């Protein structure tokens, strides 16, 4: 299967870099970008056309109608919401599941 290209949106840099370190190991996933602000995030979604966007909803990206609009408009982008305030993966519009280990995140991402 083709490498899934992931854009990480989070102003918590330590978290974003940590995710990159966890996921960017083999051929399955590739982190194609990391953005810390909404304006750049909107640009990068358009420019990079990622398969998956991992969005940290516990910081700057919490309330962004413009970003929401862009992501909703692109049916080929899958959004996974994470938050530093809970151990849940929010599978955009569809469902939510708890995360107990890195395998849970990888499983969700692999099914996309």
């Amino acid at each position, binding site marked *: 299967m083709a490498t899934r290209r992931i854009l990480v949106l989070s102003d*918590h*840099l*330590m*978290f974003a870099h*940590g995710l990159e*370190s966890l996921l960017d190991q083999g051929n399955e996933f590739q982190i194609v970008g990391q953005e810390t602000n909404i304006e750049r995030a909107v640009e990068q979604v358009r420019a990079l056309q990622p398969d998956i966007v991992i969005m940290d909803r516990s*910081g700057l990206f919490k309330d962004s109608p413009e970003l929401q609009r862009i992501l909703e408009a692109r049916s080929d982008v899958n959004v996974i919401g994470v938050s530093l305030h809970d151990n849940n993966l929010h599978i955009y519009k569809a469902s939510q599941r708890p995360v107990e280990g*890195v395998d849970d995140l990888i499983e969700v991402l692999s099914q996309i």
Partner: protein
Amino acid sequence: MEALRILLVDDHVLFRKGIASLIYGRQNMTIVGEAEDGVEAVTIARQTKPDLILMDVNMPRQDGLETVKIIKKEMPEIDIVMLTVSDDDNDLFEAVKNGAKGYLLKNLEPQELYKMLEGVAQGESPISGVMATKILQEFRQPDKGDADEEVDELTPREVDVLEQIVTGATNKEIAKALYITENTVKIHLRNILEKLHVKNRIQAAVHAVREGLVGDSAEEKK
């Protein structure tokens, strides 16, 4: 030089695993254990005797502050660095007063994490902006009195250093501004933190006596 042995404590799984993954990539440090809350942290600290504990302030079951108190009492040689989303957290300052060497914001670059850990391992006590303001305020409060022991006040030089930090100056900039070496700045910071810890211990002891928790008054209250 031996690798710094770190115990990682945070209830957020992906954040914790991410930090662990970053640290595994570094040559001079290693993760000896992970814990999800304060209770687990104490157990694993006893088992592994890490050099340093990197710990979130906010956790269920037993939070960072409580855990700092327990570990500093039982295993005082272990350095503790707090992790936090906000540096305005009052529990954060309490943790530093009770013995934590410093703190890191979760929105900092990993480079800051490595620098902090390496610094603490070398005996440094990194203090920054908001924390410096709080320390100054702590020493400027009128003494709560009744203490038999004298609380060491900050020297004028130490106040200078803290005031520089409040403006956001780096150690290098402070050294230049005060015509001292960077090493001297670090020594001042270490002493400031030690005075803060001692002041806190004395206040806690005075408070305990006053509240009848220990000593003669404890007997009377029974």
